[in-house]
């Protein structure tokens, strides 16, 4: 079965319990659809999901982007480091 590599960081990494996993990809599936699927296993990922940013192959992408087998997709909690 086709898969994508999903990367998690920060709070999302802690929710999922690992920084990376392979996830099954259906035909014509968007990044948003993959996130919805993941959220069934890891409900914490839906918290604040409107502010979650998506990267596909290490570049920012629209959440309606259609994924290809082997893509690296990352769902990013809002970027941190705002002290200065």
């Amino acid at each position, binding site marked *: 079965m086709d898969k994508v590599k999903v990367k998690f960081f*920060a709070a999302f990494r802690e929710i999922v319990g690992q920084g990376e996993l392979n996830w099954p990809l259906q035909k014509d599936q968007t990044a948003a659809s993959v996130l919805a699927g993941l959220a069934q296993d890891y409900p914490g990922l839906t918290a604040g999901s409107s502010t979650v940013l998506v990267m596909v192959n*290490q*570049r920012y992408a629209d959440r309606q982007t259609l994924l290809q087998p082997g893509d690296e997709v990352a769902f990013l*909690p*809002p*970027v*941190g480091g*705002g002290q*200065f």
Partner: protein
Amino acid sequence: MIIRITDRPIDLQELISEVTTEDNGGVVAFVGVVRRWNDGPDGQPREVFWLEYEAYREAAEELMRGIASQVEQKWGLTAIAMSHRVGHLEVGEPAVGVAVGAPHRGEAFEACQYAIDTLKATVPIWKKESWETGSDSGQSWVINKESL
């Protein structure tokens, strides 16, 4: 050009030396340092003990290279160095350093501020804060207001 996500202490002198050339009379550097006090989500200050920075390293370095390209397009400047630390940091330690060299200082100030503003707003780096108030303590992933 130095573009770096690193778990080693930031060597600001190295960044400055990198952008100091015989053509660049003005060098501007920014250092972001871990503060003792930071506002919590309720706007009340919390005392910070340490931070843990985490990056999506490949994507972060790619975006930082993109910032360098934008600086070259906007100001024609190629002397830029950016380094962001990851891992455990104590109060007072530099977390990020940016240096820009230019023939004249006005554009060095502009480009350096543009680079750090863009880095802070777009580069995928998060931080976990170990904090305490009079009545509470914890460890929280902190959201950067600029990215909202």
